[in-house]
């Protein structure tokens, strides 16, 4: 592998709290040196990064890659390609595929597909319960042994408090987080959007904020009872933020993520029954969106995760009640974070990279999130000033379901390295 010298970029590394114009040398797949006036090794490729940001690659702890079972929507290969196009060097794949990832051989399958794709690192998340049925614990030990980095029944919220308690206790043996999709199913049942003035006008059944908050409260209480690590997925309400803040003040092992659409859009976006604005948890109110932004700023929300959810256009082209939940995230996350958080001054650039790279690596105990010498060279180079229009037709993902089509975003990834290999170049 020939050495790569990235010259003259703004090198931001939240793990070492550094932010300065510098060169970065990649050799043998690792960060070999960071500094000014690094000599060009013989035969090295030189990449000019003037005016660009050089940062640890983004890490998304919540994506749906649809393989096995729904390969017409996305495959591990196309999802991993979408990831590196968006600046992500690692993604954690949720297990709600068909069959679900609830045993070691299924975990091994995801891992091997990810390696074969050779793009972003693909980390499998195993199920909490067998078949995501909420009845019996899956074999955490076997799955972790095969490469799982967390457990989750995402999409099938764990309703039994007993089951969540035992999951949190048992997961402590392996040091993995239990990631919960927080939803009281009896309250949310049949809901198609946030319960509020818009759902009332449109005549759609609403999902009250309480459906999420009740389970967030329960999970925090169980984290206190068990000492286990609960990771709260895609937080969407101001009430949830309040509950997490209190849990963190108590010193509980509670971490949380928020999705770009929840700090960007509100339930008004559903007007006209646009199914690309249908997701679960749903788009909430302005006060919720603002609370999520503040929580990302003050650390109540640890990381930004996309909940990348590919769907076929046919599936979204139908009555709102019948359309599936979710939107693509990997190829718009950086541009949205820049436009919605960095540009208005909610986050500084280093803070944004911390929430999208360094912090998710810490929370899920993953490689990456750092440019420390000796670390694997998972690096992104992006243009923070680039303004570009979203054209879903040019996505690397197999699907096209985004509510941001035609919108102008700020900041665009130009090059992605994983283990020092150039896996994406615009």
């Amino acid at each position: 592998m020939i050495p790569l010298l990235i010259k003259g970029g703004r090198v931001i590394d939240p793990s070492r709290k550094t932010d300065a114009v510098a060169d970065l040398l990649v050799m043998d797949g690792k960060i070999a040196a960071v500094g000014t006036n690094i000599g060009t090794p013989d035969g090295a490729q030189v990449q000019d990064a003037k005016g660009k940001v050089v940062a640890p690659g983004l890490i998304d702890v919540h994506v749906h890659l649809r393989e096995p079972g729904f390969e017409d929507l996305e495959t591990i290969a196309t999802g991993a390609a979408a990831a590196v196009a968006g600046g992500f060097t690692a993604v954690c794949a949720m297990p709600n595929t068909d069959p679900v990832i609830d045993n070691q051989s299924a975990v091994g399958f995801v891992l091997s597909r990810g390696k074969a794709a050779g793009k972003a690192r693909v980390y499998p998340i195993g199920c909490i319960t067998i078949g995501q049925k909420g009845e019996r614990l899956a074999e955490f030990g076997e799955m972790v042994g095969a490469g799982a980095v967390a457990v989750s029944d995402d999409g099938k919220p764990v309703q039994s408090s007993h089951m969540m308690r035992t999951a949190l206790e048992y997961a402590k043996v392996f040091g993995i987080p239990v990631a919960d999709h927080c939803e009281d199913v009896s309250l949310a049942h049949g809901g198609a959007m946030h319960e509020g003035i818009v759902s009332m006008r449109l005549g759609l059944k609403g999902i009250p904020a309480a459906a999420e908050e009740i389970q967030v409260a329960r999970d925090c209480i169980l984290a206190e009872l068990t000492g286990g690590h609960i990771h709260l997925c895609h937080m969407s309400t101001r009430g949830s933020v309040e509950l997490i803040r209190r849990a963190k003040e108590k010193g509980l092992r509670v971490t949380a993520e928020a999705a770009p659409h929840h700090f960007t859009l509100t339930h008004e976006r559903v007007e006209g029954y646009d199914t690309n604005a249908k997701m679960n948890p749903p788009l909430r109110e302005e006060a919720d969106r603002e609370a999520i932004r503040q929580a990302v700023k003050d650390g109540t929300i640890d990381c930004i995760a996309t909940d990348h959810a590919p769907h076929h256009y046919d599936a979204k082209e139908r009555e709102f009640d019948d359309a599936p939940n979710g939107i693509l995230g990997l190829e718009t996350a950086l541009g949205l974070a820049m436009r919605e958080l960095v540009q208005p001054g909610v986050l500084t650039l280093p803070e944004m990279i911390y929430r999208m790279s360094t912090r998710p690596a810490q929370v899920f105990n993953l490689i990456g999130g750092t440019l420390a010498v000796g670390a694997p060279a998972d690096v992104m180079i992006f243009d923070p000033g680039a303004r570009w229009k979203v054209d879903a037709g040019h996505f690397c993902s197999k699907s096209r379901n985004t509510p941001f089509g035609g919108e102008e975003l700020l900041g665009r990834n130009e090059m992605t390295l994983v283990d020092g290999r150039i896996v994406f170049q615009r």
Partner: protein
Amino acid sequence: MSAPTLGKDLVGLEGLSREQIELLLDTAEPFKEVSERQIKKVPALRGKTVVNLFFEASTRTRISFEFAEKRLSADTVSVAASGSSVSKGETLVDTARNLEAMRIDMVVIRHGASGAAKFLGDRIASNVINAGDGKHEHPTQGLLDILTLRDKFKKIEGLKVAICGDVLHSRVARSNIWGLTKLGAKVAVCGPPTLVPREITALGVEVLPHIEDAIAWADALNILRLQLERMEKGYIPSLREYNRVFGVTVDRLEKAPKDLLIMHPGPMNRGVEIDSAVADGPHSVILPQVTNGVAVRMAVLYLLAGGKPDGSAARAEES
């Protein structure tokens, strides 16, 4: 100022202006008389093809639309969801495209999903008329209710109308609220808090907690049908108790300071939301509502087809 017109579709009353609603009501007036003739037919829509696409069971609304279409001389086909390709899993968008390919002029759609009429209207060039979409709107019912109120009270401005019952699940309630408030009526809703959305006051309506309050306050009651499955879903304990607490009964009406006009969109659950003696009583306009339904639907069809709102269509005789 140019005269108001309607757009391509009639999806709901929310999107209409006061002038457009008045245009519809005024256009309906002369059509009432057509239904009183020996030969109940005018040539206004001759050569036009209308499809009535009913994905939900309906007797009253479907027949009312069919009569309206036939009395305007349109060629019509009615499709019920069962017995068509819809029951074989065809998507709404495919159904729409197939209809379009047959070069139809108008579609009347009744569908269980909120937004279905708009969905269809956005995807085909034909005019689309919403005959009820989920819990969203039922604009022709709203219009016929308002026309019936106008017949009795001569004007809508300042009129007090209480909409009673399951507001949460009611498309009739939403269309009535939009239409009446745009025309300057005062609207209140009354029902168990489990069946009245918390945010409803944002539409400019008052929430009255007790049926006695509504009866004391209103000039007219529009009493919604209570779907029997609401009990199973836990919204109310029993029909018996619903009648006890929220039923419109003769006893309650006798205590009112004035006679109230009684409306119901049908079909009624006698002895649940409304007592038989009230439904059949002297102040009930439940059957005139049905009569007005045909005239209102003729007006909607006629105006969407580009007809002129000068009454000439109703004066024309079938030749």
